[in-house]
């Protein structure tokens, strides 16, 4: 393509208003994400267990450039080294990722039929069904997780129901185990998986399924060869939306999990509020962010690809 022909398309002119519109979200991110992140990062480079802020090294503006370089020289990565030395931290990270992954899988197994059923329901029902999925958001997340304690505890609703039905003779211990954490995560994050998946399945062209049937493919096979591959972008989007926040989840393991439930969110909380060790907990937070960057980048990548293919 010649340069002259490409030029008008390559450089769309933006007005001042246009730039402003773009600047607002970036300014928001700068103030509320990037700046706090740098503060956390700076604290993580301070010395271990100096309990009270401000954490040294400090930057004294009066000392000028020299003072700045001096501060840089005083930074230490000891906190990060410490994270590798105490196995509590890497075990927490690993356990968080594995709990999040298992929960995501269960959410998918529960959520796919739900989203599929909604997308295949008669048109006039769909808005209502969608409402029902969003409805839990109208109650505080914290209260809903608390409510699960009442359901899952030994004298809770679930055990009473199972006992009265004669399915068990001893109450099951669910609360304060990892199972309760799985239940809590699956329950809390289900809408985040169902909504993108529903949006994807709903626009699936039914004539594709008819075409498959017409070519001799029975419905149970066309589900796997047509519906599932075409729903993949929705499946991935939903899974990332569950997995990413679940890794750093604190409330659910704290309320429903037991002492053996290791999750990085809980470890972080303990470090911060019980041990009052801000530098180490900051280092934990920075590493957590780095771990989550991988799936977030993958997610973005996949979204872009899906958009390009027009799926």
């Amino acid at each position, binding site marked *: 393509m010649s340069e002259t022909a490409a030029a008008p398309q390559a450089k769309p002119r933006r007005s001042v208003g246009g730039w402003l519109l773009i600047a607002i979200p970036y300014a928001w991110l700068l103030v509320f994400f990037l700046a706090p992140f740098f503060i956390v990062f700076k604290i993580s480079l301070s010395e271990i267990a100096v309990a009270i802020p401000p954490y040294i090294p400090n930057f004294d503006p009066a000392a000028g450039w020299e003072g700045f370089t001096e501060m840089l020289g005083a930074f230490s990565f000891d906190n990060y080294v410490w994270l590798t030395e105490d196995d509590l931290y890497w075990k927490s990270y690993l356990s968080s990722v594995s709990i999040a992954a298992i929960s995501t899988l269960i959410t998918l197994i529960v959520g796919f039929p739900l989203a599929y059923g909604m997308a295949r329901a008669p048109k006039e029902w769909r808005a209502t069904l969608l409402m029902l999925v969003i409805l839990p958001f109208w109650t505080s997340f914290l209260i809903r997780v608390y409510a699960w304690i009442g359901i899952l505890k030994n004298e809770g609703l679930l055990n009473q129901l199972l006992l009265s039905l004669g399915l068990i003779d001893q109450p099951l211990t669910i609360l304060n185990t990892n199972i309760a954490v799985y239940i809590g995560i699956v329950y809390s994050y289900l809408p985040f998986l169902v909504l993108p998946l529903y949006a994807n399945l709903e626009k699936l*062209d039914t004539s594709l399924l008819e075409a498959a049937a*017409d070519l*001799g*493919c029975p419905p149970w*096979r066309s589900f796997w060869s047509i519906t599932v591959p075409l729903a993949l972008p929705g499946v991935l989007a939903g899974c990332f939306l569950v997995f990413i926040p679940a890794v750093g989840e604190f409330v659910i393991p704290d309320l429903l999990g037991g002492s053996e439930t290791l999750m990085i969110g809980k470890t972080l909380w303990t470090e911060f509020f019980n041990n009052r060790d801000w530098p180490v907990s900051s280092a934990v937070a920075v590493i957590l962010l780095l771990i989550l960057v991988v799936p977030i980048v993958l997610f973005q990548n996949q979204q872009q690809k899906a958009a390009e293919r*027009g*799926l």
Partner: protein
Amino acid sequence: MAKKPIGPVRRDFAPWDDPQARPYIEFRNVTKTFGDFIAVDDLSLKIYEREFFALLGGSGCGKTTMMRMLAGFETPNAGEIFLDGQNLAGVPPYKRPVNMMFQSYALFPHMSVEANVAFGLKQEGMPKAEIGERVEEMLKLVKLQDFARRKPHQLSGGQRQRVALARSLAKKPKVLLLDEPLGALDRKLREETQFELTDLQYELGMTFLIVTHDQEEAMTMADRIAVMDKGRIVQIATPAEIYELPNSRFVADFIGDINLMECKLTAREGDVSSLHAPVFGCDIKISQAVDANIGDTVWFAIRPEKVRISFEEPESRVNALKGEVWDIAYLGDVSIYHTHIANEETVRATVANRSRVVERPMSWDDEVWLSWDADAGVVLTR
């Protein structure tokens, strides 16, 4: 009505005139309703092997429902459908020996062209090597060999249409159903594809059933056309018969352009009938035995290209009208003269533009005479 085939029918191919011939596809008193809406109303239809059959009608006339019932996507409320002697009731779509080319093409977006064409063959459990050969053969047929690895979204509309065709032909079905197959193509490509489809149908020896609202498409390709309206078939005939001998005002008006005049039947002498059109103030003589009583209201229908237009007064006042040129539509190949007769009634006459003159002798407000031959028009009784 005269029942001898006229016009270019495929030579020696007229199984519908043979009472011994066994229909290949048969609809027997089929009715299909959607809620209160009657899509197909107690309809019977016979289609013969190797026939290229067109269902023609406006939107909502039930033509697509007919095709979807044959493919198995809709179940009739009443009546039966037979294919090659087999009752199709209860046979799911994936077990019917028919393949359909969808209006939207319905190509699988996540599969390559190759995989799309191979899809039906894989379902059959055909060996891999054979699938490869067949896919290649099909892609060659639609001239897409070089595009085998592309995804549908990387193709143009015309290429997608070809992939859809190749995919529906790959299993070599007994019957190919085409749902508005050329609707999305531009005019040039459409015309080209029409001829390719007829050639293909002849070569492969399949039965084709096409659903279309485009009369030109039906006329060029089909052996027979069924014109549908409100869930019923109004007329089934060859394209030439449909055009020249429509059986009703609906068909006459739906297919092509036509002048309609309300008349009274005044006389019948053997094969010659006389009519009077009071609004036009015109006497008409026609070489057709009209199935009506003297004094009945009938309609005289004549195609614009069969009306002569000239300055000279014709010798006889029968089959002639005096009028004033009111508008001229110049289409390049032909010009259509809209002529006002008494009472602002309009009669259209089409004239082929045989010379390269830009200034045509006939112009707006000129007084002209319109005339036609005794075998040019047709009398309709409904």
